[in-house]
């Protein structure tokens, strides 16, 4: 009988004595779930609700592959496999059971909150109920840098219930040209910590969760699953593809932004309606598109683009206006011109198209040709080989 490890998502840990992983036995996913329920009565109910099938808002992964692309709950297991139970985005269905990600419940606003958010509340598109929706939402911001900074500040001011910050870097003086989360006294501090301090100095009500790690295919599912909306302020292509793919698998809306020199691009990806890979199926070879460190960026540009991203998240939460979904906003600061182009779900997209070939997270560093140094010799060889092919093709 195969012995497997089962990853328990945060909202279910009250049943498992707060354990993140439990050991279980079973020849397939169904048996393992039954075994976990036997050890921790009530677990099956949390997963299945009152039905017998895994509901649409729960994803189950065997070694990072979602079971609907395998054999569902009949997926066979082997010793040492990891089964992960991950609730997908909450909301939408009236009968979404308690298995949804733990959500703050806001009752009536306090007098102080009514005062603090009065400029929101008096608008018909927000009102007290809209403000409560904002305060019950959770947003993950990838990167506490140029884009992450204005995003985090404006979402904190708006009263977002929970803000997650993913950043493992420390504040450097060169950041201070544009990253408004950090100030002089923060140089040398972990950016995620500096971000938390700034956010709570603005608004003590916001729960800030810091993820002081690089986002990788080992942790992206676990981190992203905990939030309703994901905002990308990442600074490299590998992270963009990783976050995009994870959001697709977990069915999370992704608000994407990028900047360079005097240009910015922003859009919104909604689950099942297109993704970053539809727009850019493959990354440029390393060196072809410079980074901000190589080419520079106007500091104020980060504010413009990041604030647009924050605005789009608030619109999604409130359900107002027309989302940037389906449009790529192109901001040219030098000409002070804003254009839009149409984007759509590509039926041939390898991730979200009609016949997807990417059904689990991949090696993003190799995909992007080794943006980071490799400690793994095999990965390094593969990246070197890919680079050599590109160099020969480019004739350089």
């Amino acid at each position, binding site marked *: 009988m195969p012995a497997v490890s089962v990853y328990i998502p945060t909202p279910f840990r009250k049943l498992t004595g707060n354990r993140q992983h439990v050991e279980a036995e079973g020849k397939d996913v169904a048996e393992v779930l039954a075994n976990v329920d036997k050890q921790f009565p009530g677990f099956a109910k949390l997963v299945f609700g009152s039905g017998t099938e895994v509901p649409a808002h729960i994803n189950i992964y065997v070694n990072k592959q979602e079971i609907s692309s395998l054999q569902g709950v009949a997926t066979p297991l082997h010793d040492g496999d990891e089964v992960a139970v991950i609730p997908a985005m909450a909301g939408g269905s009236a009968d979404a059971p308690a298995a949804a990600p733990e959500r703050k419940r806001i009752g009536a606003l306090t007098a102080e909150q009514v005062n603090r958010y009065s400029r929101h509340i008096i608008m018909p598109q927000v009102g007290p109920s809209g403000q409560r929706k904002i305060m019950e939402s959770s947003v993950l911001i990838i990167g506490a840098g140029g884009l992450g900074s204005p995003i985090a500040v404006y979402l904190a001011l708006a009263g977002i219930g929970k803000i997650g910050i993913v950043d493992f870097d420390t504040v450097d003086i060169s950041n201070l040209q544009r990253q408004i989360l950090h100030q002089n006294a923060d140089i040398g501090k972990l950016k995620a910590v500096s971000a938390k301090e700034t956010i709570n100095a603005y608004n003590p009500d916001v729960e800030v969760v810091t993820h002081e790690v690089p986002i990788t295919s080992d942790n992206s599912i676990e981190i992203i699953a905990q939030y309703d909306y994901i905002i990308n302020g990442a600074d490299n*292509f590998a992270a963009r593809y990783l976050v995009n793919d994870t959001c697709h698998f977990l069915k999370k809306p992704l608000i994407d932004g990028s900047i360079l020199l005097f240009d910015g*691009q922003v859009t919104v990806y909604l689950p099942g309606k297109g993704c970053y890979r539809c727009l*850019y199926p493959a990354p440029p070879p390393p060196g072809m*598109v*410079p*980074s*901000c460190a190589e080419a520079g960026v106007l500091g104020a540009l980060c504010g413009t683009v990041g604030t647009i991203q924050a605005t789009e998240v608030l619109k999604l939460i409130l359900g107002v206006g027309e989302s940037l979904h389906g449009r790529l906003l192109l901001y040219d600061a*030098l000409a002070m011109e804003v254009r839009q182009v149409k*984007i759509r779900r590509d039926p041939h997209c390898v991730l979200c198209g009609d016949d997807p070939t990417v059904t689990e997270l991949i090696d993003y560093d190799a995909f992007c040709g080794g943006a980071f140094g490799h400690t793994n010799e095999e990965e390094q060889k593969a990246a070197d080989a890919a680079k050599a092919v590109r160099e020969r093709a480019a004739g350089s």
Partner: protein
Amino acid sequence: MPARPWSKRNGYMAIEVKVTSVLQKVTGAKLVHGEGSTVAELLSDLDGKYPGFKQQIMQEGSLHRFVNIYLNDEDIRYLDQLNTRLKDGDSISILPALAGGSH
């Protein structure tokens, strides 16, 4: 707004082409004009005016997958790709992917 060049010279269409920051290194400007009755012809025309232009965006006869070309606001991938026909007054945008940051 820049004045439109005299169009329909030699029976070809003069097309406005906008390029983003990175490609500007090759063209020297963010707005250039080219000629061609299809996107493919236009790109060849631009390559003639700005040597090295095509190499930045194409490889072996097809567009790099991290570069998108829009005719007005539609991705040519969903039109007729490089054979997409152009007419006078069309606006082409060439957009490579951006990632920002430090890597």
